[in-house]
């Protein structure tokens, strides 16, 4: 075999072993990533512990109308002030320390439903915040609303600005 090709394969193999080994030893990231599960409508009243799940617009509206969830806006404060879902709390993950986050979530119990949203599309601010609240603050009923503010506002559902 061509020596250069052999060396290329050796480098890639070692990198693969180290990478996978690291994941197995540290366990900080699973080797295979699975898409996030969607919550079924029956589960909307079941507050046993779950990893963050996806929630759709109609389910979101249901939770909003029955006041069974706290809405969290994961976008930056400028977008939040411009307009957000009525009653939502603003937590932009990167600009808030853990202490600030605890302050903002004061009085919300750990099994409460939290619906986190950002600007829709591929925005992953809500997912990052959701994972953080799940792992470090033990919130066990986190729902990620992927349509985000644009979809909600587009439907003419209640918003406010401040």
């Amino acid at each position, binding site marked *: 075999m061509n020596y250069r090709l052999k060396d290329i394969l050796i480098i890639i193999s070692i990198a*693969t072993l180290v990478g996978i080994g690291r994941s197995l030893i540290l366990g900080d990231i699973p080797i295979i990533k699975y898409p996030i599960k969607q919550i079924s409508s029956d589960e909307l009243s079941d507050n046993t512990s779950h990893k963050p799940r996806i929630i759709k617009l109609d389910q979101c509206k249901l939770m909003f109308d029955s006041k069974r969830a706290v809405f969290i806006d994961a976008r930056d404060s400028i977008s939040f002030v411009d307009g957000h879902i009525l009653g939502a709390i603003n937590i932009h993950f990167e600009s808030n320390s853990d202490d600030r986050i605890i302050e903002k979530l004061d009085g919300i119990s750990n099994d409460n439903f939290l619906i986190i949203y950002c600007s829709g599309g591929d925005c992953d601010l809500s997912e990052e915040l959701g994972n953080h609240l799940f792992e470090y603050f033990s919130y066990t009923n986190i729902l990620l609303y992927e349509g985000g503010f*644009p979809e909600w506002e587009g439907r003419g559902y209640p918003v406010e600005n401040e």
Partner: protein
Amino acid sequence: MGTIFIYASYSKILDPVSFSSNIHNYGVTIIYIENLISLILPWIELFVGIGLISGLKYEASVDISIYMVILFIFLITQAYLRGKSIDCGCFFNDISPEDAATKRFDMLKRIIEDIVFLILLFTLKYSINKKN
């Protein structure tokens, strides 16, 4: 060149979770393999960087780095052309024009940077071929 690769690999090795979501932002991979790539790719960068500096497996390192830089150029360019920021995964249309302009400029800068790297790497490869 080696230092650049080592420098680039360092933060990705420490934080594969964010790197995995960056990979997701390029919008070309299926979700199942994104973590796997984020675990392996930074180590390849590190070894290649070491190879370029120390001369260990030098020729293979030059080859791999050329493939990687070509891949990066392709990935950033396709995201740029689709109007998608790889920084936040958002589309330029969805964010404020000022933000979009900065992010667009950053991506363009990275594409040009990578093209310069590619030229440098081809110079290295050419000098190897000349020696043989």
